[in-house]
């Protein structure tokens, strides 16, 4: 018994004759939709199919985007939860490029913005690879040439990686580039995608000249935060307010249809400058008790740099020092970050740190480990080796916070 999804069936089950819609099959079970809307899953051998008729084509009611006189914004879609839909085959959520249904929620947005939608790709963000950052950067550059600002819809899983990679690639921008995602898929009435997108559009029409991330400020639907791409992490796997500016305040907040700036930012420039080379051979290593020098060496093979997430102020076991020396002697850069969620690496305080410093390990200051990764990939792609350490230590895109304050999120 195989039918096209949506086939109307008349079946006899458990003595009753029922009109149902065929949904799917999983081994010996069929899932059909009853007239009251419920799906039921029943063993094939318990059913008699009395009649079947071809599925009707589904009518979709769609409003096309108006192209008015609002601020021109380009919307680049890459996939992710924010535009996800249900996959009835696997029963799981999958990416979709159909973003209009989000925008349709706020009719006022169609007056305020003239939105051009550009489909970049349609993937789950965990499949984003460095090579795609390069392509995406090109598209962003192109779109910024046409629009006031750019909104990039992106899966939340690796959104902060993409954001920081783009941030390094663009030395200057002619408008805001706002990345936006969602933690509840937009097929749900309670989805955060509507609010996050509303905020992203508002942020993308400001004079910010940075790569940022627009997500819920808290669990409530009343405020959207704008985070700097190079200071943001996804801090919770499921909550709406998963994204946080680590060790600082968000750049801005969108509340009651209004953007409030909370901290300093780089204004947009009159020219765009893109250096789009990326060295992929960089890896992250999470130090932990039991990690052996051999492990470290194997992971470093063929790498131009490794980013170690050490403990505390930037420490690893002394038993690994010979391997670090060996790795460095092969020309691989070793950068030290901390697996603590926040705070600075400082190789002056403890003897372990001083020895690592002497060996030549580069301290990443208070750069987030993921950002140290994208920065290393960027630097090795675009600058000579000898500038690596000094540029890692230089605050290029707001990735190093010279001051941390009590009371800020960590």
């Amino acid at each position, binding site marked *: 018994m195989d039918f096209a999804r949506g086939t109307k069936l008349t079946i006899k089950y458990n003595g009753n004759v029922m009109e149902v819609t065929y949904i799917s099959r*999983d081994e010996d079970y069929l899932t059909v939709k009853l007239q*009251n809307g419920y799906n039921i899953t029943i*063993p094939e051998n318990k059913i008699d199919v009395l009649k079947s008729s071809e599925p009707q084509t589904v009518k979709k009611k769609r409003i096309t985007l108006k192209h008015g006189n609002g601020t021109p914004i380009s919307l680049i879609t890459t996939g992710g939860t924010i535009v996800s839909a249900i996959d*009835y085959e696997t029963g799981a959520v999958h990416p979709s490029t159909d973003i209009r249904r989000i925008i349709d929620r706020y009719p006022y947005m169609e007056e305020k913005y003239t939105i051009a939608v550009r489909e970049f790709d349609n993937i789950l963000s965990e499949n984003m690879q460095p090579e795609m950052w390069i392509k995406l950067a090109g598209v962003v550059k192109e779109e910024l040439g046409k629009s006031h600002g750019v909104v990039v819809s992106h899966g939340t899983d690796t959104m902060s990686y993409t954001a920081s990679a783009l941030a390094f690639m663009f030395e200057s921008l002619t408008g805001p580039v706002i990345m936006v995602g969602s933690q509840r898929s937009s097929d*749900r009435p309670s989805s955060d995608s509507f609010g996050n997108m509303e905020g992203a559009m508002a942020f993308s029409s400001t004079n910010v000249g940075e790569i940022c991330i627009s997500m819920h400020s808290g669990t409530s639907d009343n405020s959207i935060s704008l985070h700097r791409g190079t200071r943001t992490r996804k801090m919770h796997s499921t909550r709406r307010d998963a994204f946080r500016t680590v060790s600082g305040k968000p750049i801005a907040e969108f509340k009651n249809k209004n953007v409030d700036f909370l901290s300093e930012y780089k204004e947009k420039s009159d020219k765009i400058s893109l250096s789009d080379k990326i060295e992929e051979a960089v890896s992250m290593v999470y130090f932990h008790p039991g990690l052996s020098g051999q492990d470290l060496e194997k992971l470093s093979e063929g790498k131009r740099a490794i980013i170690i997430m050490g403990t505390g102020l930037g420490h690893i076991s002394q038993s690994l020092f010979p391997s670090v020396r060996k790795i460095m002697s092969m020309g691989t850069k070793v950068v030290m970050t901390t697996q603590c969620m926040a705070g600075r690496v400082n190789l002056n305080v403890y003897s372990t740190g001083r020895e690592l410093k002497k060996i030549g390990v580069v301290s990443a200051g208070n750069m987030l480990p993921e950002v140290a990764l994208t920065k290393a990939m960027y630097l090795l792609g675009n600058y000579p080796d000898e500038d690596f350490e000094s540029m890692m230590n230089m605050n290029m895109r707001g990735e190093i916070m010279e001051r941390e304050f009590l009371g800020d999120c960590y």
Partner: protein
Amino acid sequence: MIAINTKDKKIKIGLEIHLQLSTGKLFCKCPDMNNSGIKGKFSRKLFPTENESGDVDVAALQEERKNVIYEYEVSDNSCLVEADEEPPHEINADALDTALQIAFSFNSEVLNAVSVMRKVVVDGSNTSGFQRTAVVSTGGYVTVNEKKVGLTTICIEEDSARRVESGNDHTVFSLDRLGIPLVEISTAPDIETFQEAVDVAREIGMRAMLTGNIRRDSDAIRQDVNFSMGYGRVEIKGISKLSLISEALIAEENRQKFLSEAIGIFLERGGFDGTVLIDYTEKIAKSESKIIQKGIAAGNRIFAGKLENLGGILKSGNYRIGKELADALKLFSIGGFIHSDELPGYGITQDEVNEIKKFLKSRENDAIILISIPESKKDIAQDAINKRVEKLLSLDFSETRAANEDGTSRFLRPISGSGRMYPETDIPTIKIKNSRMVELNSAAPKSFDQALSSFTDEWEISRQEAEIILATGRKKEFIELAKLWGKPREMSRMILQSIPEIERKYRKKLEYGDLKTLVEKIATKNYGRISLEMAIDQCISGKSIEEVVISDDIRPLDRNELKIIVERIRKSGDIRKENIIAKVKNETNRPVDPKIVMEIYQNS
């Protein structure tokens, strides 16, 4: 009045019985009981979404127009799942088992695989915007007064959030009830009388109680009634007491009867072209009506409108079309309106009425209305009235109504379509093993009487006591306590008599958890019933369990202590077999074992 084209007026009634389970929540590990106050608040918006076939559901859309911000109070029996900040966990196996057991007990055909669905609900009562629900069985029946009433489906679903406050621009819910498992038992529309509806509801409830897993809260059992008498199906939701079922049905029958009559008159007069609301503020600004003045002071505009051919049937005798329109307006937070059937009144004079009628070119059978609303709500109000009249004119009264406490009901929303449903993708289809099915089936109570008999036999308590324990869903608690205490009869007496008496005395309830601890501790000490009763008394009176248990007051006098007392009494004179016990008890407040006293008395 003329009779309108009547159909066959045969009454058809179906029931949906919802029973809360006491197994803990359905898709997380939260308990079903809430123990303390509000842990926090948050607010959300909800947007209707498209279902799998691309249609936005009618009911969902209607809710959207309300455009409300929902506030949620976080209870201590809620976690990130209720806040819609985490996907659902695996289904609660105890809850599912209970639902399956109930299904078996009604001979309903249990499905081998349970597919959880999302039923879109955007009135804020579900933080996710949908209710999770799954069919666990189809078919089956219940026999009442020797008639078999068929069942259509038995579902297991999440209860919704409890509405705490409904204001004009915000609605507040508590998360305490959200996610509690509900078993929904739906009958076919086989019920023909109001009494039969009550009987069927009672029978279903009692039988389910036998699982011992039904909550004992005041709103733990709620009934929805489906009623039709030829004008389409009306669903009355949320009847919390059995006794209200027939009241609600009577009220609904009357409503439809008089409504159809009034519509008959209306149609004969020639019907309706739709009302147009006109700003009448300046013209009536000088009126002494408080409603008008208050409205103007609040920044409202006063709109006037003509309702063609509706004069005299808005509110007159049994005709109440006015209320139908008012209900429709309430959905958009519009408090109501004044219509000519009530005028002069509300401080509006006959002269003013005449002037309005003149202004609106109102003819004899026409009604006029006045409505005080902000400018921004004018179109909404006009639309709501016209749509409602149109619907009534079709003589299809089908809709979803909410039960009021007084047996009447109010318009809630159109009947939901099947478009409200789509699969819950976060929960894989739950396959049920055959062995589990067999086990649950054999444990399922096939009738109340049968369950009663075996319960009475097993625990050796009176049939009357057993019946009360089972029918009030206290089977599980009783078994637990009886096992701890060792003497089931003493325990049933304790539960059904002693404790309620003490509770009445202090006007305070004893928590089940506290009772269980007390029983356990007193039993361990090998003290008797009187000690336990004293301990319960002290505990209800406010002392801590720790204090009570170690207190000397509840410790029975031992043989030596009793000997001394008996000696003392003996010395003081008159002492007989008949009065010795009373005399000893007179000497002490502590528990006394009469048997030991008698032994001492006789051996000395």
